[in-house]
């Protein structure tokens, strides 16, 4: 079960590859539509209060303007429980940048110009957007905030165990607001006709968009079509439809069937499509003389919005990671007058494991135990808390294989003693983990066209993960035909219902669905089906669900250089070794891990949305101010994985690979920076000034 994979085949290239490298793959805004109009939004310039008057006279005089939409003339939407979608339903303002209207015009230029001419007056109310630990704003999320986990957990006596521990760590870590910034801005084209609403939309699940937008407008789901063949990255920000989809569809009610196009500007994306909330996390660890944990405590405080609750529960990272007889986990929220946070790649795990894995490194240093060895000594036999067996858990193999390949054993543990020219050099390690999820309810249609060619349809989406290619492979394998004999259709509500791309559960959920649909097809039509033979089916319930603890694991190793004079941090080398069940396509899977690790480097070194509490907005709201890792920020990034056969997770044996790459990366880099300098920075990102003292 151990030993790194030496893939004999790299896997097929992406099916849509040629269209992407030539730019002919069509993203939402690029679908040719007849006679379109363009929308430019009106947005609140105060953080809390209400709109008292809107003067649209000057805007309406602009050549080409067809509509100025505000809460005065917008139609009533059906309340469906999502405040983000209830746009223009009242005069209330809950956060700065909120959508409060729109101008629709013949060109983008006219719409933008006219929007500037709309005069809006407000009644301001006091707002609070200062994230802090203050009883006035802090509360415990209710159980339905995060249905899979309760916010709190307590086992044994943490305080007593800490008092008796040979070695202890008590440290507080902070992570900042971060924004997803997929390269393709959120975009939608909305058009109403006699049949209903058509949306060309950039999202993580066309069926979910339909399932929410149809009831919002009080129409049957069958009357809403959502078309999304290519999506230019998402990372969680396109998981739930945001207000812009509702706004554009509302505006299109007034245009006599003409399509309305709206692509968010980069700046608007910092207020309208979610973000990773800032956290403040305190971790207390206690260990005996051999480094075995006797107590684990992890308390997390995260920002949410008063307008719409979001809880990702970062402290839950410490529930099942290591054995510890005494354990306390708490998750709290601080509610502010800010936009609503949302899932961002590894929500909870990315920030939570940064804190836990940094604390583990601090424990290794204080106990004088190698950090790889410390983790191996705390490896649980069965899942902590639940007592369930692991479906598979190869964290030790990842750590050992990674240590071997990285050259870890030659490491001098002393911090701050290696210098090459102006640079202090260090290495660090962290573990990563992500739950293996499966979303039920997807359906796939298998159709034999003729001559051994098959058409497979599933309303899934490829947001860049490679799902179009992986699902084609899984279908071909199940059908026992070459990959070329399968034509896979996804990315639209024209295909059968499928769950959203999220939770690293795409290939697990859709792949299982496709494989089960093929089985149903063979049962119904046999191995020599007639042309036109067709079956639609889905995957049943996994009998092992609830019987096993199911997670992916990984070990991240980083070499870091910190400039002794300027404090600049560079990451010339990273290695990630993962155990994530079956790898369907090594070529595209490697990119998933690589992309996660690269975003992890970016999280470690650069990303920080700076909020000006006086106004309640993000100041550095573009890609010059909000730096994401560029090419020269990333050095050598090596990725490998352990052969892992997991018969329990799902029918295709995949555990999910989209998010685990970002988990642990920032901790490995922070730990390496400490090893380089002797300075322990506990606040992301690791910017130069934090090393100069």
């Amino acid at each position: 079960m151990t030993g790194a994979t030496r893939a004999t085949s790299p896997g097929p290239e992406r099916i849509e590859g040629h269209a992407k490298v030539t730019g002919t793959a069509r993203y939402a805004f690029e679908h040719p539509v007849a006679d379109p109009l363009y929308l430019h939004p009106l947005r609140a310039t105060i953080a809390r209060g209400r709109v008292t008057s809107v003067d649209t006279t000057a805007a309406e005089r602009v050549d080409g303007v067809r509509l100025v939409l505000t809460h005065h003339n917008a139609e009533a939407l059906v309340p469906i429980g999502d405040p983000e979608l209830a746009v223009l339903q009242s005069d209330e303002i809950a956060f700065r940048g909120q959508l409060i209207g729109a101008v629709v015009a013949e060109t983008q230029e006219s719409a933008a110009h006219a929007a500037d001419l709309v005069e809006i007056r407000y009644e301001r109310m006091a707002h609070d957007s200062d994230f802090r630990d203050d009883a006035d704003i802090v509360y415990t999320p209710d159980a339905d905030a995060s249905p899979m986990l309760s916010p709190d957990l307590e086992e044994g006596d943490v305080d007593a165990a800490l008092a008796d521990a040979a070695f202890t760590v008590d440290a507080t870590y902070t992570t900042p607001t971060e924004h997803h910034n997929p390269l393709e801005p959120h975009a939608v084209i909305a058009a109403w006709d006699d049949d209903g609403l058509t949306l060309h939309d950039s999202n993580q699940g066309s069926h979910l968009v339909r399932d929410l937008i149809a009831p919002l407008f009080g129409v049957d789901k069958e009357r809403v079509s959502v078309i999304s063949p290519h999506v230019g990255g998402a990372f969680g920000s396109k998981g739930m439809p945001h207000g812009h989809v509702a706004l554009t569809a509302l505006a299109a009610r007034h245009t006599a069937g003409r399509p309305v196009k709206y692509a968010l500007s980069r700046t608007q994306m910092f207020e309208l499509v979610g973000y990773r909330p800032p956290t403040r996390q305190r971790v207390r660890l206690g260990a005996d003389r051999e480094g075995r944990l006797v107590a684990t405590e992890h308390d997390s405080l995260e920002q949410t919005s008063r307008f719409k609750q979001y809880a990702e529960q970062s402290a839950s990272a410490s529930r099942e990671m290591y054995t510890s007889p005494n354990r306390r986990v708490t998750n709290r929220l601080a509610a502010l007058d800010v936009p609503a946070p949302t899932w961002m790649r590894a929500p909870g795990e990315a920030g939570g494991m940064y804190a836990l894995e940094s604390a583990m490194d601090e424990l290794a240093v204080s106990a004088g135990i190698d950090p790889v060895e410390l983790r191996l000594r705390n490896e649980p036999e069965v899942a902590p808390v639940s007592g369930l067996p692991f479906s598979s858990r190869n964290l030790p193999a990842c750590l050992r294989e990674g240590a071997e390949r990285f050259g870890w054993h030659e490491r001098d543990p002393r911090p701050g003693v290696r210098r090459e020219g102006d640079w202090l050099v260090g290495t660090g390690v962290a573990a990563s983990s992500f739950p293996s999820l499966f979303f039920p309810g997807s359906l796939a249609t298998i159709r034999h066209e003729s001559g051994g060619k098959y058409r497979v349809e599933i309303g899934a989406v490829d947001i860049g993960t490679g799902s179009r290619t992986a699902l084609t492979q899984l279908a071909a394998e199940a059908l026992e035909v070459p990959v070329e004999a399968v034509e896979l259709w996804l990315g639209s509500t024209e295909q059968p219902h499928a769950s959203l791309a999220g939770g690293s559960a795409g290939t697990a959920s859709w792949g299982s669905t496709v494989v089960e649909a093929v089985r149903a097809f063979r049962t119904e039509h046999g191995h020599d089906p007639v042309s036109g033979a067709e079956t639609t089916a889905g995957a049943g319930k996994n009998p092992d669900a609830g019987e096993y603890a199911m997670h992916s694991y990984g070990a991240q190793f980083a070499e870091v250089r910190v400039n002794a004079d300027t404090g600049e941090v560079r990451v010339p080398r990273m290695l990630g070794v993962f155990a994530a069940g079956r790898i369907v396509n090594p070529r595209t899977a490697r990119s998933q891990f690589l992309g996660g690790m690269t975003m992890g480097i970016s999280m470690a070194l650069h990303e920080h949305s700076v909020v000006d509490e006086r106004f309640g907005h993000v100041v550095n709201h573009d890609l010059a101010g909000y730096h994401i890792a560029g090419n020269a920020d990333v050095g050598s990034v090596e990725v490998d994985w352990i052969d892992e056969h997991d018969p329990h997770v799902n029918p295709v044996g995949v555990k999910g690979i989209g998010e685990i790459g970002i988990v642990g990366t920032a901790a490995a880099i922070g730990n390496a920076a400490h090893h380089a300098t002797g300075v322990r920075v506990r606040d992301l990102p690791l910017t130069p000034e934090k090393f100069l003292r």
Partner: protein
Amino acid sequence: MDSEITLWVDGRRETLSVDTRTTLLDALRERLGVTSPKKGCDHGQCGACTVLLDGRRATSCLTFAVANDESEVVTAEGLAEGDEPHPVQRALLENDGFQCGYCTPGQVCSAVGMLDEVKSGWPSYVTEDLDESVELDEDEIRERMSGNLCRCGAYANIVTAIREAAE
């Protein structure tokens, strides 16, 4: 105010009347239906709109269409010969140097333009010897390609692909 201009786009002659506020990128995408160059930021910060403008790489969102009368624009679509990708595109396919694909046409145009700059002996910030011809090692590629952001994080594969394509 509108002005009539002529553009040569991927070898085709296009004459159109543009609002003087229209960027070259919007003229290509919204007026001519040429959507290979992408809009990622509209501020020249991400590089997704990179095209070859009169032979040199340029961010098409930072120039007005009206200022480019009679210019030659080559997009990533125009770099391929039908089904036959350009060597840079072929190398990106083989090395999986992209995921969502949205930054990719810009990366392609930027890489093609960059390789030409290297051939012409243009130094970069990381070029050590300004008198010798540039040796295109990985650090040179990383530096010269840093105007093109990739949020999917395919940089390591992009660098490998460009190195292969350059050989």
